[in-house]
């Protein structure tokens, strides 16, 4: 189906079901219950899941397939955001032209940076991308202020021209982003008993785009182009002597992944029409690296899992404060309760980055294939147990 093999079709359908049902799945705990803080089914967070999913899927096309580690991909995300906001300021609040422009501009930007950076490999490539991204970041803060609005960030105002729309709504406020009239922030609440599920237009727009992006990445992975990219990672000497020029392939992968990043940036601005330079900083590039590795670089679903895991931790872990902890350990005697709270405290709340860093180090050290490899190992172990069980079962009657 869809020109995919059976295994990939199953994966795609599974991901589609999960994303479409996310408002249910991510809200398993009834409102008001003690566990409700672990619910992630609110629009803002769900949007971030899928948007960063797109970012990581794109990054994986470059890093996962070719092995070129870019530390500057946040620059493309930032450029995408700026382009989209400018489109909202100048043309209209419809997100389609904004997103198209984000993808085009970030693609062009990636073409220039990629063309230069890819003249080097290995660590030199990483440092070149790092240097370019930091340069863009510094420029966005200083000289490019007329375009980026410097530290304040680029925002919509009431006197933006908006040629194909109104500068202001009838009641004098700034119009909101929409898809042919469907407002991105509109949402519909469904209450079932103690549960409340929120269905947001913005989330579903992002989710559909993410599914398309995911589908495209599967096609790329299985195509001759994807095969060439894996060949580049495996052995460039053999590639040269097989009559292939690795450079244009790598550049194409770089540009495609830059366009994915631009798409993510454009979507981010479509959900919340502002753009700031901090999105371009190298630590933001580091974040997408973390996501991809954590999930499993070079696998199809890994980056999406990684993006989800990190964004979930960022939002849910960071909300756990000492009060919550005391609540958890309240069944214990006071002394032990305080001790447990003191032990857990540095790893949650504001300290969630510490947990992230530790998990990341453990993954790189022991599980280079990320969560996906972990899942496969567990699956294998289970299957082996099962086989043994069935063997035992089959030998039993003989006794």
């Amino acid at each position, binding site marked *: 189906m869809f*020109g*995919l*093999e059976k295994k990939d079709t199953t994966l795609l359908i599974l991901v589609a079901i999960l994303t479409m049902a996310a408002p249910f799945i991510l809200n398993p705990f009834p409102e008001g219950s003690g566990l409700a803080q672990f619910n992630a089914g609110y629009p803002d967070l769900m949007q971030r899941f899928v948007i960063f999913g797109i970012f990581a899927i794109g990054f994986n096309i470059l890093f996962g397939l070719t092995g070129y580690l870019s530390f500057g991909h946040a620059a493309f995300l930032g450029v995408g955001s700026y382009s989209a906001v400018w489109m909202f300021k100048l043309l209209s609040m419809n997100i389609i032209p904004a997103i198209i422009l984000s993808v085009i501009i970030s693609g062009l930007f990636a073409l220039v940076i990629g063309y230069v950076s890819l003249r080097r490999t290995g660590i030199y490539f990483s440092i070149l991308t790092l240097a370019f991204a930091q340069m863009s970041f510094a420029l966005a803060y200083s000289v490019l202020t007329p375009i980026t609005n410097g530290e304040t960030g680029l925002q919509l105002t009431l006197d933006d021209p908006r040629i194909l729309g109104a500068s202001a709504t009838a009641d004098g406020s700034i119009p909101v982003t929409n898809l042919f009239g469907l407002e991105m922030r509109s949402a519909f609440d469904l209450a079932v008993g103690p549960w409340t599920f929120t269905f947001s237009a913005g989330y579903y727009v992002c989710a559909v785009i993410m599914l398309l992006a995911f589908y495209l990445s599967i*096609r*790329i992975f*299985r*195509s*001759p*182009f*994807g*095969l*060439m990219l*894996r*060949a580049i*990672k*495996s*052995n460039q*000497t*053999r*590639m*040269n*002597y*097989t*009559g*292939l*020029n690795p450079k*244009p*392939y790598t550049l*194409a992968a770089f540009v495609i992944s830059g366009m994915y990043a631009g798409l993510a940036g454009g979507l981010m601005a479509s959900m919340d029409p502002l753009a700031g330079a901090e999105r371009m900083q190298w630590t933001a590039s580091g974040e997408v690296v973390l996501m991809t590795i954590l999930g499993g670089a070079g696998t199809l679903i890994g980056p999406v899992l990684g993006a989800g895991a990190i964004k979930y931790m960022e939002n849910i872990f960071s909300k756990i404060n000492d009060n919550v902890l005391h609540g958890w350990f309240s069944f214990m005697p006071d002394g032990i309760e305080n001790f447990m709270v003191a032990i857990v405290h540095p790893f949650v709340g504001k300290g969630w980055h510490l947990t992230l860093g530790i998990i990341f180090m453990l993954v790189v050290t022991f599980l280079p294939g990320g969560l996906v490899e972990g899942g496969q190992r567990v699956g294998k172990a289970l299957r082996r147990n099962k086989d043994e069980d069935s063997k035992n079962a089959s030998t039993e009657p003989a006794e």
Partner: protein
Amino acid sequence: MGILDVKDVGKRFGGLQALSDVNLSVKENTCHAIIGPNGAGKSTLLNCLVGKLIPDTGSVMFDGNSVLGRSPHEINQMGISRVFQTPEIFADLTVMENMMIPLFAKRDGAYRLHGIESVSSERELVSMAEQMLEDVNMLDKRHMHSASMSRGDKRRLEMAMCLVQNPKLLLLDEPTAGMARADTNNTIDLLKEIKEKRDITIAIIEHDMHVVFSLADRITVLAQGTPLVEDAPENIKGHPKVQEAYLGEAH
């Protein structure tokens, strides 16, 4: 005029004259061996043929075109495939994927963006790859991860990857170096079979005399960067100059 003509080639590395006045002509559909003691310049010469090095003087013509200044992938596209001393394959990929890459290179040239249709939908190329694997008795291993194969199998796979492109000239760089006797004999048989079945020119650089005399139609002996003799194998065997070059090395 042969398919490959090397004229007056010289190459110097700093103070060392690695090659000087190399003249060599490989005739179409023959197997031409280049032998010589260690340090005779065999590898340097080979690297000059495939674009890895550019000679200081002289010319290298292949099929009527100069190869000088072209990059390795351009030279491959002209019809020269190379087998390395230690097999260079795509170790992270399966055997079948290894085979598909040279087929795409042959059909689509050095670069073409095929990002949508899947590799397995290229039925014609898939069956060509399978046919080639069958020819080298590796069809049963087509789903294997190529890193996990024996060295002999890797060599076989590399050879198959070169042959599937139907090259006009196959360059072999000590294809049996470091191999056990049995593997060496297998390789010789494989090459003999290739020679018989296909219209192909082979140039082989080799240390092992057994391999050379089993395969070569013509032999060039290289010593200290310059050709000593070029003749048919039966004349090379007893040639005094050759004995001198090799014995000289032994003592």
